């Protein structure tokens, strides 16, 4: 059976039915649903041809000729969606149901069908569907998992390399330092094994024979061993700390770098507090673990083997006795790991909630004060702390009980040695001396240290695993795809075309529907519409903040996804409603995108932006240090600095997102002047609520509920007497009213 273009594998029974209907060859594509019409998980399918469609669901097969259909409807509901056709008699025929997994192909199919009904079948209509399906059919060839984009790496397969080896690559550049530390550790470990031998000799030979010369020799040897041991330990600690710092900094740098290139969709779903927490705290956990693995684990292993060999050489019977508690220690260690692992995951979740709350409330302290919600903020913080405490309590209990049990078992081990060794001596065993017993007890206590270490290792491993998972969430996250890297056009003229663009942040609600729009170079386009109509989303797509839209956007005839992203964004000047200021001088804030700019270029940019005047009046002028998010400047002043920043960029495309929304009339006029100087000769897109700010616009686009409902010159739209006309009417009435009130008050 030939394969049909579809979002999921075509269910075989439907394929057979299609064959029986002799329709197989006529099918262009199919939408496969994962719910029955009764909303049980199951299968359903609609197949689309050039002139007809076939639907298969649990009630049977339906066939419609397109001439019978008035309209196709892809309806997103809550947690599910449906595809229906409305026939000329006004009857709605629900054909299939599906979860959001099939929502995009269903939308594309509805656009296709409506297009065919309106204009007849064309290859372009099918191309739009194929484009959506191509993106849907991105599966990993190895494991079959769905990929975010067709050419992206599969996280699942990429992650198969062990987590430890992934993080050990951060230690590799510092292997020289780590090897030196390891060698030094070997020396100190070997030195630590010497004192018990000396003790044995003292007890068995020196003291019974009252040999003073040998006593001095032994003391000198001990002194030498201690000096070597502690000097080397001090040096090793310093070296280890430095190496550890280098590792953690390398890791932090990588995460931060990766965080810069993550798409906005990542930040839509992950709180910034969580990202900060990962960079600050999880990296330190990894640092400790890498050091533990690369140093302590090896040292402890050396110690374990070394002591075991010495003990076996001293007395193999006693050695076997002393190993009795080991299986119990290992068993309890594993049981503890299983218990405590999930606890660490939960505690990380609580810690992440806490830092998220702090990131929200501390910068938002002004709002909290303004609404006098200090108490509720404190209560919420208390609750989060309590949740954290509850989890922490569980771990604290386990962490207290476990070492106590371990230590007890270790002590039992030494009791066994005392018991059996003591019995040997009392019974007069010839190959056993008091000195041997004393040194054996010393070795046994040293032997249990590494045993304890490895038994506890699971605990720190689990803790690290949780942190590592958090870090990998960023390191392995899908970055913004720059498919067109290095594809740099000579110049961006500024022609922008949207073709059949559909977009949703998540699949539950379509934010933009079937957007078709052409903007010519040098056009000044006003984008108007009510709040939440999709204006800013339209801009976000032009900014290429989101790539996962259906349809295509072309800039100067080239697909936006195929243009080098960095180059493209550099050609755009963006002035936001609430401009982002950094905690730096005014000069550096203006020079943000052009760090090597000449001082006079900055002053010129500030002058064009009508910012130079107020900067001159500041005591520190351009050196004025702004607080966080530009504290110290008014809204209008920040806006003008933001415009100056855009001037510095000399962009081909200029985007102004409600640039004058939050300022008074006088400041608005200053900003307006600045904008008018800036837009000259550039393709400009202006989002504005105040329609008066659009007086330079030669084209108006009215967006409503995610669709373009009107598009044309201001005169054309006014003549149409549609939505734009209504908005103008409402605003001019409001302005007149305000003017009258102001006059009355003046009188």
């Amino acid at each position, binding site marked *: 059976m030939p394969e049909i273009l579809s979002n999921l594998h075509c269910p075989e029974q439907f394929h057979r039915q299609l064959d029986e209907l002799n329709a197989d060859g006529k099918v262009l594509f199919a939408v496969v649903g994962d719910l029955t019409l009764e909303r049980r*998980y199951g299968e359903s399918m609609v197949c689309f041809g050039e002139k007809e469609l076939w639907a298969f669901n649990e009630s049977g097969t339906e066939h419609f000729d397109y001439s019978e259909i008035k309209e196709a409807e892809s309806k997103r*509901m809550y947690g599910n969606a449906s595809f229906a056709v409305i026939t000329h008699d006004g009857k*709605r025929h629900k054909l299939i149901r599906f*979860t959001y997994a099939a929502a995009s192909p269903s939308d594309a199919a509805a656009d296709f069908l409506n297009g065919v009904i309106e204009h007849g079948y064309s290859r372009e209509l099918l191309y739009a569907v194929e484009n959506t399906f191509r993106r849907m059919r991105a599966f990993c060839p190895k494991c079959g998992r769905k990929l975010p984009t067709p050419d992206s790496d599969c996280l699942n397969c990429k992650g198969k390399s062990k987590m430890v080896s992934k993080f050990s690559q951060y230690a590799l550049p510092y292997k020289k330092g780590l090897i030196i530390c390891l060698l030094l550790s070997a020396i100190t470990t070997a030195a630590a094994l010497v004192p018990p031998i000396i003790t044995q000799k003292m007890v068995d030979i020196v003291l019974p024979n009252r040999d003073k010369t040998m006593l001095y020799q032994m003391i000198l040897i001990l002194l030498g061993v201690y000096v070597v041991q502690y000097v080397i330990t001090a040096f090793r600690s310093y070296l280890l700390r430095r190496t550890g710092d280098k590792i953690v900094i390398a890791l932090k740098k990588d995460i931060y770098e990766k965080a810069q290139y993550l798409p906005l969709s990542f930040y839509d779903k992950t709180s910034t507090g969580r990202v900060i927490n990962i960079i600050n705290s999880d990296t330190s956990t990894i640092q400790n673990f890498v050091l533990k693995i690369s140093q302590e684990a090896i040292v402890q292993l050396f110690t374990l083997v070394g002591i075991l060999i010495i003990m076996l050489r001293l007395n193999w019977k006693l050695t076997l006795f002393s190993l009795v508690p080991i299986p119990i220690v290992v068993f309890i260690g594993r049981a503890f790991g299983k218990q405590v692992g*999930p606890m660490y995951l*939960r505690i990380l979740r609580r810690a992440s909630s806490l830092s998220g709350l702090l990131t929200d409330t501390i910068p938002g302290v002004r709002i909290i004060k303004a609404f006098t919600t200090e108490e509720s903020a404190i209560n919420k913080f208390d609750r989060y702390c309590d949740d954290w405490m509850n989890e922490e309590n569980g771990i604290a209990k386990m962490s207290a009980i476990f070492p106590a049990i371990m230590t007890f078992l270790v002590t039992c081990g030494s009791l066994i040695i005392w018991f059996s060794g003591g019995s040997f001596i009392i019974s007069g065993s010839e190959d056993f001396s008091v000195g041997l017993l004393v040194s054996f007890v010393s070795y046994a206590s040293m032997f249990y240290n590494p045993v304890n270490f490895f038994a506890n290792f699971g605990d720190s491993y689990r803790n690290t695993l949780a942190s590592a*998972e958090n870090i*990998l*969430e960023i390191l392995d996250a899908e970055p913004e795809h720059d498919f067109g890297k290095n594809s740099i056009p000579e110049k961006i003229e500024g022609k922008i075309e949207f073709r059949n663009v559909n977009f949703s942040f998540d699949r539950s609600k379509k934010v933009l529907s079937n957007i078709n729009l052409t903007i010519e170079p040098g056009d000044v386009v006003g984008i108007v519409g009510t709040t939440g109509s999709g204006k800013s989303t339209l801009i976000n797509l032009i900014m290429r903040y989101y790539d996962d839209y259906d349809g295509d956007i072309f800039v100067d005839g080239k697909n936006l996804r195929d243009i080098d992203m960095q180059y493209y964004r550099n050609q755009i000047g963006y002035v936001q409603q609430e401009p982002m200021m950094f905690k730096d001088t005014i000069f550096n804030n203006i020079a943000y995108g052009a760090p090597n700019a000449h001082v006079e270029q900055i002053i010129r940019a500030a002058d064009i932006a009508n910012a130079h005047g107020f900067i001159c009046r500041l005591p520190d002028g351009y050196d004025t240090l702004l607080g966080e998010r530009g504290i110290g400047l008014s809204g209008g002043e920040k806006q003008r600095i933001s415009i100056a920043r855009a001037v510095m960029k000399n962009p081909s495309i200029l985007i102004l997102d409600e640039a004058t929304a939050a300022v008074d009339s006088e400041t608005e006029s200053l900003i307006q002047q600045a904008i008018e100087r800036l837009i000259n000769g550039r393709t400009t897109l202006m989002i504005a609520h105040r329609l008066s700010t659009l007086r330079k616009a030669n084209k108006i686009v009215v967006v409503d509920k995610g669709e373009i409902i009107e598009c044309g010159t201001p005169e054309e739209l006014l003549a149409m007497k549609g939505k734009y006309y209504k908005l103008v009417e409402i605003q001019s009435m409001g302005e007149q009213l305000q003017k009258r009130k102001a006059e009355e008050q003046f009188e």
Partner: protein
Amino acid sequence: MIHYIDGPEIMITENDGIFVDAKFYETGETLYELEPRRLFPKSGGNRYVVLLDSEGEQVAVIRNTENLLPESREVIERALDEYYLIPRITKFIKMTDKFRVWMWTAETDHGTLTFEVRNHISTVKPLYDGRVLIKDANDNRYEVPDYRKLDKRSIRMLRPKL
């Protein structure tokens, strides 16, 4: 101004699936093809249900569907059930977990399914009453009504993610 409906001042009749018709006794007006939507789909159940017209504009808000006439209540609740699909998970069968990409297989009141969960911290939300809200990689929603009442194996699988 919001037009609140408290009880029997409205008669709701079936239209088509998720759509209903409403007759307002006070004005005698009948509106067709209205779409009922929950204002609080996660926390409010059938309290505060808004009726939207074909333009998506609100017509009225029903404070509680329980206070409607029995026939009206039945119609509107059926339409709401039709619109909202939040499968209730009754049992977790399998959770494979690899680098924060989880494939969960669960039994729900709508059948058994396997879905993908990414980044449990933002997509698995435990509430204080024991409810757990889950959003999969395709933005589909699921609900565990009270995770404490699941079988022991399911709890063992879910608890570390809460």
